[in-house]
């Protein structure tokens, strides 16, 4: 990548190394209401960049789930003269014009987590459709032999969130093969209380025995769904979420929730940071992004795609805890100590 505006040439304290040891990397994340972006993605990426490149700055913006806000933040980064942009798009299909603009200024763009359209330089992600498939599959697994012909309630993410549509698509592709979806509702804005109401109304419409499992878009809504089920006295129905939020893991330990989907964010984030720094330095990224992906606008994008993992009570220690995503102390608070002990988590 070429050095951005001359206004930030002095930033890095002017180390030798061909001028590429200083620079600014822009980080654009899509929203701030779930745990992952602020608590994990951002610190992982920032720390890794700091580690790889002492003179580098990270400029961070969070779009709060609004495309136009993100576009403005994108422009602000170009104005500030960043050298590389890491973009986790709110609407990955809207971005081609922006990315072109950045490309015209010689600012490479790394698509993070969501495959942004336009001439991006690299793509690092978990495949969202794959996440949905895994959700569906794990839910069926939780039902075991009863899965064939089982009745499933689906509480999906926001109807206006394109990612929710991908999760939904993936989940359907699996669930529809062997089970029936008897009640399905999209929850505007991923609002947990609304999800809880939808669940209660589903119970009302289907009867206590009218369903065998509940697919929920994320852990936040799963909390409300479980509350609704428990209010109705139903405790033996598998409920699955996504995100591996602490509260979700605790529910899994306590036996309230069957699984969540864990994406090893650290891997994903750090790989992205490495790619970004490499682009900043003008280095080759073939090793870091060995895969190839096609977007509607571009093909053969150097990529690195990871596989998501379904976390159940059985593999918490091997996944989230082993990765240091959460410690046992985080999960096993006083409230959950007994459950942890019972599940052999210590």
């Amino acid at each position, binding site marked *: 990548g070429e050095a951005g505006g001359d206004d930030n040439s002095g930033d890095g304290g002017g180390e030798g190394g061909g001028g590429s040891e200083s620079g600014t990397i822009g980080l654009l994340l899509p929203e*701030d*209401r*779930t*745990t*992952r972006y*602020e*608590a994990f993605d951002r610190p992982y990426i920032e720390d890794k960049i700091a580690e790889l490149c002492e003179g580098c700055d990270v400029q961070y913006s969070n779009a709060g789930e609004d495309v136009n806000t993100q576009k403005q933040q994108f422009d602000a980064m170009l104005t500030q003269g960043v050298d590389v942009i890491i973009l986790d798009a709110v609407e990955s299909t809207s971005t081609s014009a922006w990315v072109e603009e950045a490309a015209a200024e010689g600012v490479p763009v790394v698509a993070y987590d969501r495959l942004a359209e336009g001439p991006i330089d690299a793509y690092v992600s978990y495949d969202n459709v794959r996440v949905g498939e895994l959700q569906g599959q794990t839910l069926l697994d939780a039902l075991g032999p009863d899965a064939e012909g089982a009745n499933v309630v689906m509480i999906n993410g926001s*109807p206006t969130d394109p990612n929710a549509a991908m999760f939904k698509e993936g989940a359907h592709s699996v669930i529809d093969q062997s089970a029936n979806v008897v*009640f*399905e*509702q*999209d*929850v*505007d*804005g*991923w*609002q*947990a*209380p*609304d*999800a*809880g*109401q*939808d669940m*209660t*109304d*589903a119970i*009302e*419409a289907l009867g206590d025995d009218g369903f065998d499992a509940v697919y929920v878009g994320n*852990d*936040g809504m799963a*909390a*409300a*769904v*479980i*509350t609704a089920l*428990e*209010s109705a006295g139903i405790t033996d129905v598998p409920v699955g979420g996504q*995100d591996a*939020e*602490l*509260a*979700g893991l*605790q*529910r899994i330990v306590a036996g309230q929730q069957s699984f969540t989907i864990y994406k090893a964010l650290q891997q994903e984030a750090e790989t992205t940071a490495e790619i970004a720094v490499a682009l900043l330095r003008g280095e080759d990224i073939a090793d870091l992004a060995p895969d190839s992906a096609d977007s509607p606008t571009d093909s053969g994008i150097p990529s690195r795609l990871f596989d998501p993992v379904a976390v159940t009570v059985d593999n918490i220690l091997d996944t989230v805890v082993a990765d240091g995503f959460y410690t046992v102390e985080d999960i096993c*608070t006083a*409230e959950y100590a007994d459950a942890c002990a019972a599940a052999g988590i210590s």
Partner: protein
Amino acid sequence: MSKDLAPDPRLLVRERGLAGYVEDFRRRLRGGELGSLPVIIGMIVIAIVFEAQTGSFLTPRNLTNISVYIAGPGIMAVGIVLVLLLGEIDLSVGSMAGLSAALWAVLSVSNGVNDLVAIVLAIGAGAVVGSVHGFFFAKVGVPAFVVTLAGFLGWSGVQIWVMGDEGTINIPRDSFVRDLNSFYFSDIAAAYVLAAVVTGGYVFALWRQERRRQAAGLPTRPTSEIALRGALVAAAAFITAYTLNQHRGLPLALVIFLVVLLLADFMVRRTTYGRQIFAVGGNAEAARRAGINVDRVRLTVFVIGGALAALGGLFYAAQAGGASKSLGSGNLLMNVIAAAVIGGTSLFGGRGWIWSALLGTLVIQSITTGLNLMGMSSEIQYMITGAVLLLAVVLDSVSRQTQRSAGRT
């Protein structure tokens, strides 16, 4: 001196007996002074339509659910009604609700503060936030719309900040907040006793007042009217109690909501302070000239509104199973304001009543629940909710048309 001044001969006095009521009703119908009747009719229509479509709308279980759901938004709507009576608006209720839930969760779950203390602190924080809004509005003179819009943004920032790294915090199993959603007085007696107390209290108060009026030589209502009103209240109360007992009994949430409604209604209609709220909402300058401390009334109403929003936020968290960064965003604000307006409280101040919080949340919740039962896809839900909202108010507006131009002097 008051020679022939007794009753004005042009005042049409209601005839005694049933005929009088019928005539009175027909006159009101023509004059468009129907009060909450159109909304109540609208709700009955909604209930019938959904029952016909789903067959499970009018089950005790569904009605119980509705009664639990309305508590949170309903309590917030009580605060909004008070603010609307002042002629102002509060756009920050959703953020305040989310902030209060976040504070409670962080204090009680993460920091080990005693549960009830944390609840009190969270509600207190709502009051403090309300007082900040009230200060800027009443003392500094910034329009309430702008103050609470700033609050809407600012407090949800604080909410995210308070939640910190935790996206969601589960409600502990033994927390009182969980009971807000799931505790039921399962003893059959509870619901019936409450119904009896409400009915008895209502009739007694009415009867006491009429006796005092009679003693003072003022016109009184006929005993038949007291009996009729008592019978209506009794019917509503006992049918509700019966229905609730068919499922799991009297929900704690409903009890708290009713207590808030009754207290607020008492405050608004029976105390000097309530009178002052109406006066300020009707004509702030006239209220000031009458010696009312307008700033104080404004400030305190925002404090009460903030505390109620915070309390509502706890109910909302109980429903969601936990506090989160996004709790209280979304359509909550619009629903709460819409509830107050649909229930018959004017946006322009000085006109309305507390019970519109109950009526309005009932209408909105019935629509949502009914559409969910029907399994409508969400975009259709949006459209139908919009249309029904409109219809619920159209009936009222059409009847009011006739009296629209009734100018003054």
